[in-house]
Every structure is written in structure tokens, then in C-alpha cells.
């Protein structure tokens, strides 16, 4: 196995080599490659991988952490995207279908002033940001729950990778100790 403690190269070199072989990380449009590399650097410093297998495991860990962030961000974006529909649902009983559609379209148009006006109208009816967010979450509950399950899977993968690295380090240490212990006996026999 390629050992990073010998003359095979530093961890940074090996990471660059691994990236050359496997291609750049699978980032989505709008995600920052530099931020990904900075996160990887932090995890490398904390874990200090010593061989190629540990580097692969570390890569799982970095991807898991990145996915964790991506899922959180995605959940936030989905709730925000459901806000116009939530406003329509909230005001429909009082305003009727047509008016509710107009209010929701005014909010969705994106103009800050119109949004403020809509929120003021809602405030007059006793509805605030919290109620709107809650309704938006309710509308997307099924999707959000599924994303939570994906989240749990990503966290589990990351934990497993870290545990595996730990196990590998312990196992290697035990092997080295047993080889060291056997050395004097072998020398005495020869």
C-alpha cells in the first residue's frame, strides 16, 4: 500500500494526484471549488492520513461533509421557494382564489417593496414571517422529510469513514508493535 510517511510524497501531493486520477470533485453550479478544497485541507489536518486507503476514506468524509452542507442549503432554498405558494394558501380563505393569486404573484415578483407591502398586509391579518415559513414547510413536508433521510445517510457515511480510518490506524500500530516485539527474538535466533 502506498505509504505517505515514506518517500512516496506528502499528503498534499497525493491528494493532487488522486484528484488528477478521479477528476475534480462533483460540485454543482454555484458551489465554490476553493471552499471545497479549504474544507478538505481542514479535514486532512485533523485526520492526518498516512496511506492511500486512508486518503480514499478521507475523501468520503470530505464529500459527506460537503453533501451535508449542500442538503442544508437545498432545504433552505426549497422552503424559500415555497413561500409564494404558502402566502396564497394562507390568504385564500379570507381573500378568495383570485386575490390570493395576485398577492402571491406580487410576492413572487421579487421586488423588495412589493414583498414588504405583502408582509404588511399579512401582518394586519395577524400573520407573520413565522406563519408563512411554517406553511411553506408544511407544503414541502414530504420532500423535506426525504431530504432529512438523505442527510442522515450522508452523516452515517462520514462517521463510518472516520471510524474506519481510526480502526486502520489502530490496527497498523498493533502490527508495527508486534513486528518490533518479534525483532529481538529473531535477532537472537540468527
Amino acid at each position, binding site marked *: 500500500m502506498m505509504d505517505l510517511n515514506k518517500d512516496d510524497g506528502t499528503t498534499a501531493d497525493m491528494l493532487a494526484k488522486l484528484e488528477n486520477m478521479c477528476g475534480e470533485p462533483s460540485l454543482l453550479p454555484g458551489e465554490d471549488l476553493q471552499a471545497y478544497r479549504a474544507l478538505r485541507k481542514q479535514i486532512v489536518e485533523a485526520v492526518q492520513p498516512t496511506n492511500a486507503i486512508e486518503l480514499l476514506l478521507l475523501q468520503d468524509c470530505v464529500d459527506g461533509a460537503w453533501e451535508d452542507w449542500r442538503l442544508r442549503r437545498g432545504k433552505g432554498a426549497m422552503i424559500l421557494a415555497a413561500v409564494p405558494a404558502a402566502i396564497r394558501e394562507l390568504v385564500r380563505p379570507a381573500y378568495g*382564489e383570485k386575490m390570493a393569486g395576485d398577492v402571491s404573484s406580487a410576492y413572487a415578483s421579487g421586488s423588495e417593496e412589493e414583498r414588504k407591502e405583502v408582509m404588511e398586509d399579512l401582518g394586519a391579518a395577524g400573520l407573520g414571517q413565522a406563519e408563512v415559513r411554517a406553511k411553506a414547510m408544511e407544503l414541502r413536508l414530504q420532500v423535506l422529510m426525504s431530504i432529512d433521510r438523505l442527510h442522515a445517510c450522508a452523516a452515517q457515511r462520514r462517521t463510518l469513514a472516520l471510524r474506519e480510518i481510526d480502526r486502520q490506524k489502530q490496527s497498523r500500530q498493533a502490527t508495527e508493535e508486534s513486528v518490533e516485539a518479534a525483532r529481538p527474538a529473531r535477532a537472537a535466533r540468527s
Partner: protein
Amino acid sequence: MRPRPSARVRANRANALRSTGPKTSAGKAKSSRNALVHGLCAAPEPDSPVEDLTAFVAGDHCPAEGMNVARSIAQADATARRARQFRAVAFDRLVNDNPADKSLVEIAGSVDSVMAEVLDPEARAHIRGAAPVDSTELRLVSRITRFAARLRTKQAAEVLRKLARLDLYEKRALALRARAVRELIAIQNSQQA
């Protein structure tokens, strides 16, 4: 008793028997991918990074037995990476409402635009003799809007199912890799001893 097939059904069957599949190489190439679902279980392509990754994992003085195990590790790792890539794209589709099933999105979109027209007084003014929106129409609009929302939910559910499947593929690939890693370590330990 089954009804006798009509003349049209008989003609269709006779025509179908004469069909011998795609003729052109482009058609053959296309139909050869008919059963392709995601390609994650396919053997790696010759120019894939598996060989380089195998050498990377095995290091310099690895026995032949260890090389085979290192190749298993590299293959499983490449599969896990591909699953990760596909998952990222599917998630992007889910969050940004990019269509996975275009037909569903198109139907939902056209329902929305028709509804907007029905509710828009200016658009109605152009329809000769159109009366203002009444309660029956509003109920209909409400039902159809809910139908469009259900279509979007179906679309999201489809992408979520795909995400869950990809998650399973990655988990399986990682389990294979973990097993191969244990094998490689055992080989190396026995070599050291």
C-alpha cells in the same frame, strides 16, 4: 370467448412481423441503450481511472494477489464516486425544479398558464362574450391548480426515489470497498510477518 381481431389489428401484427429492428448504425447504437437505466453497474470503460487508482492503492511492492484486491478497491471507489456525481445532479434538479420528466412539467406549466388566462380580466376582455369569473369557474380553477401541484409533487417524488436508489448504490459500493480493504490489509500483514 376472446373477440376475433379486427382487420386493422391483423394488419398491425403482419407489419410488426416484417420489422427486423434498426437498420442504420446510429439506430442500432440508440436501441442498444434501450435497457440502460443508470449505467452504474456497467464495467468501467478502458480509459477510466481504475487502473491508475489501482496502482495508487497498491503502491510499489504489492504481490499479484494484492493487485487484484487493489483493483476491486479502485473499482468500488469509482462506482461510489459516480453514484455521488449522479446524486449531486439529481439533487440540483430537485432544488431548482429542473425537469426530470419533461411531460409532467410541461403539463403543469400549461395548466398554470391557462389558469392565469382564465383569471386575468384583460385576457377575458378579448374573449367575445366572456362573463366575469363566477364561483363555479373559481372552483374549477382551484381544482385544476391543485392538479398541477400534484403533478409537481409527483415529479419531486420521482427525483427523490432516484436519490434514494443512488444512495443505496453508493452504500453497496462502499461496503464492497471496505471488504476489499480488509483483504488487502490481511495480505500486507501476512507479507510483513
